[in-house]
């Protein structure tokens, strides 16, 4: 039995009262994470604290780097040396990581980046939650690319989606962003740990000797340093062998198209939503992360008051769950999108429906209340019921 099994079996079937940050750290340990590099930042520091405490007990390594640029760099280096690696940060640190997130995409380095979103731009309200990095997660690094980002809305889900982030990272050889928010990261609630052996872990697919590590199939197998393969890993445009070729148009087109299509073609396989629909609904509420909680509360209350409302919670934010949004749009006349930003996912929703999409934006570090969302549902419900009014 490995050190990891021994340590984590102590948690089996136990229910603990944990922070979302702590649950994410334990999710990483269950997923097989054996390398963490980070830099302190509110509201993500608790992830580093748990990792620094637990990794040495499960035959893993923790290192606190000099900044977030170094943190993600060390993670990528460690992954090529055989690790399952993770870093965790918040907005300002996430901004610093953007260049090397692009490097991880280009070099197809599986890793997990947790962003516990806080109020920005810049230092903003450092200790307050927000959902303002949703589009940065999608488009923060330069150049054409796809990304995977997941948004947990409970402490239990912080655990589960961290495991899933590691699995998706391995399956598609891509950095996966766990897009938490300060509300969930610092929320303390009950979480039940599964038996260690029941957790599904996607293992790294390693290339046969002499096989290409950077092409030949949509998601090529990778290789590690120190195996005599003499692999060449570069963020420059490269051929299937890994050797750079920055002057041939077709080489770049083939590479970047494959890097995008390995995700976009697998959209239906990757994306997860939770949906709760009722007959006769004319309004749909779409939410994610912490905001999904008051949003769902408002939907249930609206139904109790006689207003039929559909609810759709996005678990996967990127690639965008287009099909689920189209289905919702086909059922209702209007989609309300509460978000802790000035309208980021709502714009994405607009791309997949001709129905009105109404953002319910709230910024300033305070989460929506059920009543705030409910008021918008009911006022729009009334307007739809009596178009004259």
């Amino acid at each position, binding site marked *: 039995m490995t050190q990891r099994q021994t340590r984590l079996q102590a948690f089996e079937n136990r229910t603990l009262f944990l922070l979302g940050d702590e649950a994410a750290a334990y999710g990483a340990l269950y997923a097989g994470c054996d390398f963490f590099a980070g830099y302190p930042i509110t509201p993500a520091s608790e992830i580093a604290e748990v990792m620094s405490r637990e990794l040495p007990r499960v035959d893993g390594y923790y290192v606190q780097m000099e900044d977030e640029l170094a943190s993600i760099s060390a993670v990528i280096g460690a992954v090529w040396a055989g690790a399952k690696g993770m870093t965790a940060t918040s907005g300002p640190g996430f901004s610093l990581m953007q*260049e090397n997130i692009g490097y991880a995409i280009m070099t197809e380095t599986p890793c997990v980046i947790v962003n516990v979103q806080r109020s920005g731009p810049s230092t903003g309200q450092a200790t307050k939650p927000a959902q303002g990095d949703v589009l940065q997660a999608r488009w923060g690094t330069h150049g054409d690319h796809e990304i995977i980002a997941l948004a947990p809305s409970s402490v239990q889900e912080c655990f589960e989606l961290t495991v899933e982030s590691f699995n998706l990272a391995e399956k598609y050889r891509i950095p996966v962003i766990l897009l938490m928010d300060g509300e969930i990261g610092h929320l303390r609630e009950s979480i039940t740990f599964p038996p260690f052996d029941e957790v599904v872990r996607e293992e790294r697919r390693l290339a046969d000797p002499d096989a290409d590590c950077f092409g030949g199939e949509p998601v090529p197998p990778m290789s590690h340093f*120190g195996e005599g393969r003499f692999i060449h890993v570069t963020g420059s445009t490269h051929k299937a062998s890994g050797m750079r070729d920055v002057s041939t148009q077709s080489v770049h087109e083939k590479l970047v198209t494959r890097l995008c299509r390995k995700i976009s073609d697998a959209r239906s396989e990757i994306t997860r939503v939770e949906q709760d629909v009722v007959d006769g609904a004319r309004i749909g509420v779409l939410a994610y992360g912490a905001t999904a909680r008051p949003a769902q509360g408002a939907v249930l209350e609206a139904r109790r008051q006689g207003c039929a409302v559909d609810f759709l919670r996005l678990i996967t934010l990127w690639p965008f769950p287009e099909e689920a949004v189209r289905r919702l749009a086909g059922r209702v006349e209007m989609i309300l999108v509460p978000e802790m930003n000035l309208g980021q996912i709502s714009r994405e929703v607009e791309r997949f429906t001709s129905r009105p999409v109404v953002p319910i934006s709230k910024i300033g570090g305070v989460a929506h209340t059920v009543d705030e969302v409910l008021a918008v549902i009911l006022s729009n419900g009334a307007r739809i019921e009596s178009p004259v009014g």
Partner: protein
Amino acid sequence: MDDTTIIPGPERQLKPHRLLRFLRQEILPTAFCPGCGCGTVLNAFAQAVDDLAIDPKDMVFVTGIGCSSWIPSPYFKGDTLHTTHGRPIAFATGVKIMRPDLKVVVIAGDGDIAGIGGNHLIHAARRNIDITVLMVNNWNYGMTGGQVSPTTPFGVPTTTTPYANVEHPLEAAELVAAAGANYVSRWTTYHVFPLMESIQTALQVEGFSFIEILSQCPVSYGKMVDMRKASDFLRYYRDQSVRAHKAREMSAEELD
């Protein structure tokens, strides 16, 4: 002579040098400019590896963005992680932590190591992590055409200091020594044999080892200071360099 006349030359043929086995021969010749010092550094490094009988399978090279990062990547036949500008030491830290059995070597320029990545240099030295860093210092950003760098001497014109550099250069070797590295040295491409021995020592020393190598850039730097030939630089390195043990007996005025 008519400029358009193509003079037939001998077919390019690589001499079967014994150190060639360390290189990815299929991509030679190198992309280095005529007279560049990077070839000398590559030669000295390959010789050091050969003398120490290190199996390249046990080495990982980590580089950044700039001419000298090409010395190992892609030319040296080993595992190579060609990273983003300024970050090779941070990437190398991750590699070394996971695989302490491998020799992790960073070869990059003064822009990468002393400029954009300077903080990583300081903290790797403070951590005293067991990696070797060769900073190939050509006193300018050569790949981008000869802009001023953190190591450009005071008073020198570059393409972005057309009225002369008004800043003083960073003394990287002294900085790294102060930050806690176990081995620090400074050589030039003129001092090939001592450089080779120094690389051997750096590869063998446990903990952070750092060599600053002054390396000529006759094309991008030389054009601004009228040192257009490699030999101009080599003479300068020969005449201006002072061995550390002698420097200790000299006054500041003499050294200046």
